[in-house]
């Protein structure tokens, strides 16, 4: 592992990612509490996009997928994509 590790991300970048994750979570809580005058049709896709953004940030920066072998990314994403396909198929009647 140490032998093929890529250059590390800086502490400043990690702190920036953490700040963005915290900010998104705060926005989510405030929106969930107040609804912000928005309908569920608007809020639900917004929450899903926030969730995707947060998960991607953690995977890319904290799990180092951004700098590591793309093979790991493929191994990680394949079941997620399969799951999404199965979920979509399940909604078809």
């Amino acid at each position, binding site marked *: 592992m140490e032998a093929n590790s890529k250059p*590390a991300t800086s502490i400043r970048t990690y702190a920036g990612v953490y700040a963005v994750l915290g900010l998104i*979570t705060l926005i989510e809580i405030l929106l969930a509490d107040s609804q912000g005058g928005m309908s569920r049709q608007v809020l639900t896709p917004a929450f899903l996009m926030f969730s995707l953004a947060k998960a991607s940030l953690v*995977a890319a920066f904290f799990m180092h997928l951004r700098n590591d072998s793309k093979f790991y990314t493929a191994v990680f994403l394949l079941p997620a994509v399969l799951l999404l396909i199965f979920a979509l198929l399940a909604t078809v009647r």
Partner: protein
Amino acid sequence: MTTDISLQNDEFRAGSALGIDHRKLGIWLFLSSEIMFFGGLLAAFLHYKINNPSPVEHDLLDVTLVGINTFILLTSSFTVVLGLEAIRHGNRRRLLTFLGLTMLLGAAFLGGQGLEFSELYRRGMTLQSTVYGSSFFTLTGFHGLHVLVGILWAALTLRKAARGRYDEGHYAGVELFGLYWHFVDIVWIVLFTLIYLT
């Protein structure tokens, strides 16, 4: 003709000639199987939520408390990467500090989940009350169990670090633990949205 693989060089046997570390590949394969595990539980929860809507139970969920818990788990992911960076630079003391903090934050998350569960039980939402309750507690409970395993893994990593097993050239154990912990964090990010926010 037989081949004795012990005669092959270490780099070939470890698979590192491919640019892929076998230990890291192992944990990624494990995590991909975990996606399917949580995917199944999540599919069951969403099936019941969509086809057997229960607004009463959904309204019992405390988004603010769980939002704070989410923030705690995100913070623990941050402390894990800080610990990894510390040992990459040979600073074992900082690694110990951040691993300890990670364990505390993980315990705080479990404490928050315990508070949430006890409040839901007090208000009549239990594992046996309805299919919503069953699927909710099964899904979030299994996630909590994964956090508990993560805390135990962090404790083992901390013990090895305290015994000087890691330095700037050898920190695979810390990185592997970190991958598991961040994965548990990602699972929670998804659960928080699909269970509490939508």
